[in-house]
């Protein structure tokens, strides 16, 4: 059985089929008050649609970046992808296994091993009472990868040097390290189970720029050496440009534009993507005229009807506030905007 499974696996890789496939993903949070309060106060249910019908696919060895402002649903997607939060609808397939589908315990374990996550704040994601060596060894023992303690220690040392730390650092506690070094420890821990797919949720936004560059370069280097696939979540477009092969732009839970990174930065299609790119501060001081953008992200509990972006859109049309735009292909990109609708 296993042998057959592996054969199928290599075949899928060769045919260029995506490693991660997200289809019709949707997540609704119920923010209503308890039933009795609703009855007394005569209030209805309050539902927040954090993620609304998101589709994308990540090919093996590539980096898919999700960008968006706060409340756009980036982190909700990340949590669903690693199996921390069940989706309300839709599916996430990783290497042919449905993350949320029914499966045997054995398949579940094999799938979990392939997925790891790196969190934003390295001060919160490492247990302060554990030695670094124990933190990194935990996934190894949890998945029963190496049983011999000596071999396990050797593997921990190997992982530490892989992320640019000294193997002897395993004896220390997290507080003895700086922010950038802690993020390296978090990366080493993620690599310990030999994953294929790593979800990076804002991995550098808590770090200073000089250290951010080190961590971004490390992530890229590891991808080349180990053939890793990343889902990279960030609000910083300049960072995304340096890591992503494909980018998805989220606005209030919907993927408004999805394109190869090169195309997205060279020729953004959706008005929101254009706006986001224009809002990036001009570090090159080319005297770029920054267009002031009106308004802010609306409350996600009561999003505007039709296209969520229409109240802030500079090129809005009559149908924008009534009709939800469907994803339309524009070159290699997929854009959700009525501007590209062929039927008038």
């Amino acid at each position, binding site marked *: 059985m296993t042998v057959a499974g592996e054969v199928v696996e290599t075949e899928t890789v060769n045919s260029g089929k995506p490693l991660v496939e997200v289809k019709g993903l949707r997540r609704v949070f119920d923010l209503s008050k308890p039933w009795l309060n609703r009855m007394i106060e005569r209030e209805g249910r309050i539902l927040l649609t954090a993620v609304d019908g998101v589709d994308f696919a990540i090919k093996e060895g590539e980096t898919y970046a999700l960008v968006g*402002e*706060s409340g756009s649903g980036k982190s909700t997607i990340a949590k669903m992808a690693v199996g921390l939060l069940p989706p309300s609808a839709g599916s996430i397939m990783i290497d042919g296994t449905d993350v949320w589908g029914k499966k045997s315990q054995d398949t579940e374990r094999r799938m979990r091993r392939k997925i790891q996550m790196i969190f934003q704040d390295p001060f919160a994601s490492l247990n302060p009472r554990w030695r670094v060596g124990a933190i990194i060894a935990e996934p190894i023992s949890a998945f029963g990868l190496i049983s011999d303690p000596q071999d396990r220690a050797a593997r921990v040392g190997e992982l530490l040097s892989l992320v640019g730390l000294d193997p002897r650092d395993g004896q220390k506690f997290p507080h003895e390290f*700086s*922010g*950038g*070094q802690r993020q390296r420890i978090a990366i080493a821990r993620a690599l310990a189970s030999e994953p294929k797919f790593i979800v990076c949720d804002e991995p550098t936004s808590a770090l*200073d*720029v*000089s*250290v*951010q*560059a*080190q961590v*971004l*370069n490390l992530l*890229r*280097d590891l991808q080349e050496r180990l053939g890793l696939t990343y889902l990279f979540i960030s*609000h*910083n*477009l*300049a*960072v995304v*440009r*340096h890591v992503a092969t494909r980018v998805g732009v989220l606005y209030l839970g919907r993927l408004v534009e999805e394109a190869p*990174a*090169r195309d997205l*930065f060279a020729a953004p299609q959706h008005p929101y993507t254009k*706006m*986001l*790119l224009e*809002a*990036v*501060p*001009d*570090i*090159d*001081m080319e005297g770029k005229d*920054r267009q*002031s*953008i009106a308004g*802010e*992200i609306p409350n996600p509990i009561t999003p505007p009807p039709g296209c969520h972006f229409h109240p802030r859109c500079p090129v809005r049309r009559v149908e924008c506030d009534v009709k939800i735009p469907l994803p339309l292909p524009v070159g290699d990109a997929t854009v959700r905007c009525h501007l590209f609708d062929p039927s008038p």
Partner: protein
Amino acid sequence: MTPALSVRNLRIEIPTRHGVLTAIDDLSFDIAAGEVLGMVGESGAGKSITGSAVIGLLEPPGRVAGGEIHLAGERIDHLPPDRMRRIRGKRIGMIFQDPLTSLNPLYRIGDQLVETIMTHQRMTTGEARDKARKLLEEVGIPAAKTRLSSYPHQFSGGMRQRVVIALALAADPELVIADEPTTALDVSVQAQIIALLKQLCAERGAAVMLITHDMGVIAETADRVCVLYAGRLAELGPVRGVVKLPQHPYTIGLMAAIPSLTGDPDKPLAQIPGSMPRLGTIPDGCAFNPRCDYRFPPCTTERPVAYAAGTSQAACLLHAPEFSRVAPAETLKAADAAGIRLPKPAGEAVR
């Protein structure tokens, strides 16, 4: 003309159980009226603590151990607390990072504004309310009159930061200290807030000390930049010079490490090895020397002061004529290639 704010040889110490830490060491800078000075540096470099020292809100046991702070020519670093309280809010306005914590959640926006105005200016409640409404209109809050009776939680993040700006400007201060005013905001809102802050301070002729870690914000807003490293000045100069032709090796590394929307995305980012030393473990000589590409022998023993460097001042021995003369030829060549304008007698290659 006397600068709105003048800081001379400031030294801030924090006594701890393990000895006295020097958070700021020999820092001097001026801000002219109507000018925006950007303060940049990594976390722990001493940006915020400098701001706190200027408004006299250093958290104990931190203390100003040396140097002077002058506000429009008047020395303010040794004033008794009640005199300082009259300056704070009236002559120096503050804007903090998180607008949710700098507004009182239990009071209406209007009442908070009126209270601030009446504390510092002789006005009747009616006049103060009128001024509060005008301030809200100026910071771009729609339906200002009805919004006066809203509570902070009824505003969005960007709107709340606008209210905080209105509060800071309520008494027409000479100096505004903005500590990471846009860090908690989304990119699209960030641009609006920066433009607003810049415009309002320019109209009033107020000096601004803009504390941030975001070089992009500095490049767009500031007139001059002060780069801090481990509590010491690294470089101080006009924003264009510092961003386009940085003179201190740390600034050069910092600028190269910032991912940008231009340039080749496939090339790895330039990185500075290591990280900033913690207070108490700052190396001898230049604080940056263990991470510096252009280090030469005196860097580990001689403490650099601010030397003239191109359009700026940089605390780097390469800019000191007496030291750059003894620097190895290849170091000078590399430094020159990186755009460092070496002092005249040492580098003939410099234009």
